[in-house]
């Protein structure tokens, strides 16, 4: 029995989430700007959030068991000093960047993440529109190096929780741009608004969790442009508020695509593993073709951020 434990910060933050949502709504209502709320959209997002917590309670043992096996294997133990916690937080944020990037570039992982982008609104409830199916993406393997390096699994999950709690407040239109030094280093509402855009310019950008520097290092940073207001949602928006359909629609689409008659094994696998928008006959658009078509219509955008 391993006695080390840390608080579940995402559960502890629930009262703060609710209070902040009410605060944001009142701000918007009083000021007449800073975002939009719609009843069914918000309720769907909140139910998705509750379902995500529930799925973590029910399925969390799978990832936990995997990490504990790794912890038994590794000869390293870095302990839990403040310096180690900070280092773990930074490295876990790098882990988050890549998991998030995979989440947009591998359809199997996108099937889990897509629901977070399925609202056409962008407010604090959108932050809680989280996946129910993350376990099935097997992205827990990206955390394996942290455990093998000697960060205790409980610490790894703790800093991951702080990362998610940080990302809550950036899902808002009520905050414009923050001081330059902060925008330069941290993920902010402005950077993350761009990430939620379905505009061709903003597709596949700003994957950061806490530190926007990862996007700058790996070439995926696109600053929000005043000249191109963010259009929130999916390239192909869903038309349902049913949480079950929101949670599973892309999984169903993958199944239907993979089981089409007349495909080769490679084509079937690509329907699961290629970037969203892949099709064996080229009849669908990926981010790349969407951007190319946009530039064909709007050549003056060539060379501007995101193109």
């Amino acid at each position, binding site marked *: 029995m391993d006695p080390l434990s840390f608080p*579940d910060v995402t*559960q*502890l933050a*629930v*009262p703060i*989430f*609710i209070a902040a*949502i*009410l605060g944001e*709504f009142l701000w918007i*209502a009083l000021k007449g700007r800073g975002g*939009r*709320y*719609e*009843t*069914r*959209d*918000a*309720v769907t997002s*909140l*139910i998705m959030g*509750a379902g995500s*917590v529930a799925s973590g*309670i029910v399925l969390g043992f799978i990832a936990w068991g995997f990490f504990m096996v790794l912890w038994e294997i590794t000869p390293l133990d870095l302990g839990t000093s403040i310096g180690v916690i900070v280092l773990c937080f930074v490295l876990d944020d790098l882990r988050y960047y890549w998991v998030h990037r995979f989440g947009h570039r591998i359809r199997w992982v996108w099937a889990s993440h897509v629901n977070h982008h399925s609202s*056409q*609104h962008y407010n604090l*409830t959108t932050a809680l529109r989280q996946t129910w199916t993350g376990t099935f993406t097997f992205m827990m393997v990206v955390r394996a190096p942290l455990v093998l390096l000697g960060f205790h699994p409980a610490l790894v999950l703790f800093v991951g929780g702080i990362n998610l709690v940080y990302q809550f407040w950036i899902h808002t239109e009520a905050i414009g741009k923050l001081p330059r030094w902060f925008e330069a280093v941290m993920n902010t509402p402005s950077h993350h608004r761009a990430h939620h855009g379905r505009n061709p310019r903003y597709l596949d950008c700003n994957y950061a969790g806490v530190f926007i520097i990862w996007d700058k290092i790996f070439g995926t940073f696109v600053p929000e442009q005043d000249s191109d207001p963010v*259009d929130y*949602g999916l390239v*192909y*928006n*869903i*038309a*349902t*508020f*049913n949480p079950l*359909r929101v949670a*599973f*629609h892309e999984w*169903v*689409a993958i199944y239907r695509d993979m089981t089409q008659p007349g495909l080769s094994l490679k084509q079937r696998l690509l329907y699961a593993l290629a970037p969203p928008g892949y099709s064996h006959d080229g009849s669908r658009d990926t981010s790349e073709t969407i951007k190319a*078509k*946009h530039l064909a*219509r709007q050549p003056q955008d060539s060379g501007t951020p995101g193109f």
Partner: protein
Amino acid sequence: MPLELLLILVVGGVAAIAVLLHLTGRSDLRLLSADQARQAWLRQFPDSPIAQLTLAEDGHAALIQPEDGSAPLGLVWSFGADTVARCLENVEMKTARRGLYLRLADFSAPGVQLHLNGSEAAHWQRLIAHHPAALATATEV
């Protein structure tokens, strides 16, 4: 946090936010003009220019005939405060007391209730039924 407390917080929080939003008018369906419906279609299908747009009298949906005559018909409709659009292929169409119900072959857009008056419903029904790709079945309910 005890699970019971978490449950109370979540259920109470969701209910309170839902009631607050509804009572402050955040449940209204978006009303569309013909121009807004056109923009909504092009937002989803920028490479599919419109030949003819038929706006429902209640302003909550529009039937799209693309310039490309071989392309399927399209439909734009209000989705909460926003809009969605789909091409109409293999649709199951049912006539209903308040208009038409279209069941779409799309898990992420299972169907749409179109509120149309009598003559309007008949006109939309003809347009959809006469398009070669649109219809899988048509029934009355």
